[in-house]
């Protein structure tokens, strides 16, 4: 019988023939903390006088409250820096970016076991790693001992066919899947994404799928490591970290879900749960006080490019604030170098330093009572953005950017349809503002 990706990786890392349902103790390749969960983990290790790190890579990310808005948090950061000095754990300082983006850029490899004290650690699954979120104590033990225990999950195979309509993308696909499965529809399971649409998809878009696997309750969201994965790692000077990894022929799946990408329309998650998702029609016209483009879900260069393409030469609605947060320093630099940040600022936006931004309600855009935010993040729970009386809607970067201009939830397909019509009408001609039409 063939193995799923989860079974394959956990077999390799535990040295036993692992199948769904088994409990294994596996080697940990990467163990990660962030500044909201690391201080508790460090104190747990101090209690045990176990201040050492044995995982292949142990990394501490300061991203959730970065730079620190309060002295209490500054002191937490000091504790992490001190732990790094003592143990040799790598420190990812303020300004370097969000844990999950930094993990895929520099640390996680196909076939790795990655544990992080942050639920969206599953993001690295898009590289073909068994990556999962745990609590502070589990990660502390995993970091110090270089191993952790796992129940080998059953797998739901998500097979995606067809081509996306312009203005619809991987964020809409994953919101649609969570809507279908429910917030606990895949609890304890691994999701494994594949099929022609996933093969064609950029790594940036694949990360979005794996990132939000946990929003259906899943333990991880795996994608085969292929040529695209190799290109991504190669571009980061990490070609040696690449290996091919795919599920085996005849792997046993608890469920197979087939989705036709060409039938998808933009999706909106309504407050206050991620599975409260509807087609964009149902949200059209909802007035927005703040648009937030960023996070470990949608703060990547591809996301900023599509948002900039829509916002170029336009301005945000007067009543709608626009906050843009690149997910890492490299993304920030690329956006800066290619003029994207210029477009956002001219559109009336504000650019924050790389990190989590206002996603967790700590700083940089906390909502007022009754205010509405349209966010590209992965969560919209009550109180998420710092105010239990705020309302968070989730959408793709294209929907967020187009809605920022309109000041209300608006369908980005309108933007792309208009461009399509223009292209057909005046082939090779110059655009309205004398700018060459890019094709």
């Amino acid at each position, binding site marked *: 019988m063939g193995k799923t990706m989860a079974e394959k990786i956990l077999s390799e890392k535990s040295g036993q023939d692992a199948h769904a349902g088994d409990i294994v103790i596996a080697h940990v390749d990467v163990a990660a903390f962030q500044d909201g969960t690391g201080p508790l983990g460090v104190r747990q290790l101090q209690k045990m006088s176990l201040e050492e790190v044995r995982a292949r890579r142990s990394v501490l990310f300061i991203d959730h409250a970065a730079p620190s808005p309060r002295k209490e948090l500054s002191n937490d950061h000091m504790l992490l820096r001190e732990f790094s000095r003592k143990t040799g754990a790598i420190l990812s300082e303020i300004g370097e970016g969000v844990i999950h983006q930094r993990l895929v850029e520099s640390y996680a490899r196909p076939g790795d076991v990655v544990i992080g004290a942050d639920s969206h650690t599953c993001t690295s699954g898009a590289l073909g790693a068994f990556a999962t979120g745990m609590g502070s104590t*589990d990660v502390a033990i995993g970091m110090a001992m270089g191993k952790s225990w796992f129940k080998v999950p059953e797998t739901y195979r998500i097979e995606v066919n067809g081509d996306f309509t312009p203005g619809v993308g991987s964020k809409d696909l994953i919101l649609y899947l969570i809507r279908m499965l429910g917030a606990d529809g895949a609890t304890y399971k691994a999701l494994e994404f594949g099929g022609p649409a996933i093969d064609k998809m950029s790594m940036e878009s694949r990360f979005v799928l794996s990132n939000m696997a946990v929003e259906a309750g899943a333990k991880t969201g795996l994608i085969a490591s292929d040529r695209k994965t190799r290109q991504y790692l190669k571009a980061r000077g990490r070609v040696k970290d690449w290996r091919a990894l795919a599920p085996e022929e005849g792997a046993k799946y608890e469920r197979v879900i087939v989705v036709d990408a060409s039938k998808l329309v933009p999706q909106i998650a309504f407050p206050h749960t991620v599975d409260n998702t509807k087609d964009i029609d149902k949200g059209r016209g909802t007035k927005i006080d703040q648009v937030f483009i960023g996070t470990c879900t949608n703060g990547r260069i591809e996301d900023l490019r599509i948002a900039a393409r829509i916002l170029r030469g336009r301005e945000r609605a007067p009543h709608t604030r626009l906050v843009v947060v690149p997910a890492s320093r490299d993304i920030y630099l690329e956006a800066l170098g290619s003029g994207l940040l210029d477009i956002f600022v001219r559109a009336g936006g504000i650019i924050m330093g790389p990190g989590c931004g206002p996603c967790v309600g700590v700083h940089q855009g906390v909502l007022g009572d009754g205010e509405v935010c349209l966010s590209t993040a992965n*969560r919209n729970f009550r109180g998420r953005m710092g105010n239990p009386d705020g309302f968070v809607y989730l959408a793709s970067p294209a929907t967020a950017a187009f809605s920022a201009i309109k000041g209300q939830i608006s369908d980005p397909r309108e933007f792309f349809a208009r461009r399509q019509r223009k292209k057909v009408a005046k082939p090779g001609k110059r655009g309205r503002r004398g700018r060459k039409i890019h094709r």
Partner: protein
Amino acid sequence: MVLRGKAWKFGDSISTDLICPGRFFHLRSNLPELAKHVLEDADPNFASRMSKGDFVVAGNNFGLGSSREHAPTIIKLAGVSAVLAKSFARIFYRNAINVGLPLLECDTDKIELNDEIEVDLATGMIKNVSKGIELKAHPLPKAMLNILNDGGLLAHIEKHGGFKLD
């Protein structure tokens, strides 16, 4: 061990954001202070009015969302004896066992606010004294029972020098 207390009733999808709100992020290294805000966004009166030994009783998918271990930690620190729910989110479940907070999965529709509850952790029997009915919780998986019985993950590792799950 038999636990006794009153039921506090919550609905479905109680997220870790509701249990331990992000706006108190700066209190995460001050757990006694953070515990004063436990479940505040789900029921603003809970923390101030609950008595030590009371139970948190909820619907489906309790503890979904963020991996913050502070959520089960402050529920325990506030004096809650156990959480009873129809189902739990994965990370919360593992965290609760790691910090020694007992969880029981059962049909919580049979429990109402202020009902007197008795729970026998060894057998998983739940007695609703007010209604005169008995419920049976799904047993914990062996690996997790071992960790809970040792008093949480730290105590488990210290006792066995590593994982001892079977």
